[in-house]
């Protein structure tokens, strides 16, 4: 389970995350939904201890990210791109990550297969990968430790329609296995298909949260629910718009 409790983060004069609280439960896909620059990536970075919250707390399976001895065995995270050194091959990248978590090298071939990258792709330098292949490698890195908690930041970016269909099956399958899945997206129709629960965000704040079914029943669709909430909740933030999304 992921528990985010009153997390606030300010980047200079911009309030990127404003007292955000939510939980992501095992067996469910929780979607962080909102326009670009609304603080989704900032929250995910804070959850993974890549960024420091000014206040509030985060717990993953009851502990902070940094307090897990082998964190990638508990939490798998994918952010923009592959996360690999461009000169390394996919196999070498996955192998060094696996070794830091005391995972067998055989796990590398397994995750490459899971994300649809061939053994030949695995021997290529990452700099030659398309955007979609880099996303797949990033997802493979997240899956490496067979973690119970998975965090995907805009995972559909760069994927073609077949890739998006594959991603949908993968994410829902992972949740069906009892894992906690948190993903961020600005694609409302796609999130409606994947997520069980959504946290609607704007201006660094949560403007609504609940099950996708509840929102759809109340407003007709997730998109309509988002804009209905947006109309009532939007208020100006200090400084220019946009938070940590592009950071």
């Amino acid at each position, binding site marked *: 389970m992921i528990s985010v409790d009153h997390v606030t983060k300010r980047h200079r004069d911009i309030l990127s995350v404003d007292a955000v609280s939510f939980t992501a439960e095992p067996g469910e896909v929780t979607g962080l939904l909102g326009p670009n620059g609304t603080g989704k990536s900032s929250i995910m970075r804070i959850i*993974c201890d890549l960024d420091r919250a000014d206040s509030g707390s985060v717990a993953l399976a009851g502990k902070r990210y940094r307090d897990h001895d082998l964190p990638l065995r508990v939490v798998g995270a994918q952010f*923009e791109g592959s996360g690999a050194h461009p000169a390394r091959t996919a196999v070498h990248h996955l192998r060094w990550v696996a070794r830091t978590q005391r995972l067998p090298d055989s796990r590398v071939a397994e995750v490459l297969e899971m994300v649809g990258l061939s053994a030949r792709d695995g021997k290529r330098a990452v700099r030659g990968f398309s955007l979609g292949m880099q996303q797949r490698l990033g997802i493979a890195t997240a899956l490496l430790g067979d973690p119970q908690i998975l965090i995907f930041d805009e995972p559909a970016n760069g994927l073609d329609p077949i890739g998006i269909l594959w991603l949908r099956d993968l994410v829902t399958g992972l949740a069906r296995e009892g894992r906690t899945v948190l993903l961020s997206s600005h694609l409302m129709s796609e999130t409606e298909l994947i997520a069980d629960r959504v946290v609607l965000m704007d201006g660094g704040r949560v403007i609504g949260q609940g099950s996708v079914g509840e929102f759809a029943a109340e407003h007709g669709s997730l998109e309509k629910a988002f804009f209905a909430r947006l109309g009532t909740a939007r208020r100006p933030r200090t400084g220019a718009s946009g938070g940590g999304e592009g*950071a």
Partner: protein
Amino acid sequence: MSPTITDWPMFALHYGQAIPILIGAWIIGQDTSPGSLRTAFLAQPRRARLALTKYSISVLLVLPAAVLCIVGACAPLLLLNEVERGSMTPALTHLSWLLAYWVLIGLVSAGLTAFTRSTMWAVLPLSAWTLGLSDLLRSRLPALSGAMDQVFDDAYRGGINLSTGEFFSVAAQVLIVLAAGTAAWSRRDAHQR
């Protein structure tokens, strides 16, 4: 005037300083490319521990490289019996200090790379200073050269004659670079890739 065989060791030892600079920068710098630093921090969120491991690896790589370079630099003299028997012991003592100096240079390079998160901003100034630009800067910026000499020239030229005070001064400055590098490396901010 063409260089003689006795110039070779000094030439090799002088330009060999690039080796610890490159090793220190490489060990830290291989994880400063877009994305890979983030993966490293996800795999080991205790960042200071990661930095200390990398500093240790730098030392482990610099030591054999330094031994190889020193042996390679002195080999022609030894083979041609150019070294007087009586001068071997002080020469070896001085070379052992050179070994320590290389380790310090490697650590400063690693610390500077961690601090700037850029291989270039560590390698360029250190190379410029240790390999030749120091004389130019010394003539133009005497105040700067005074500070830099304390770190580099004292260590390099002082050899076994380095006083205890000077030794601790050098050690303290290397530690400051390492501490600043580790602190900058460990900072959790939104501008990391």
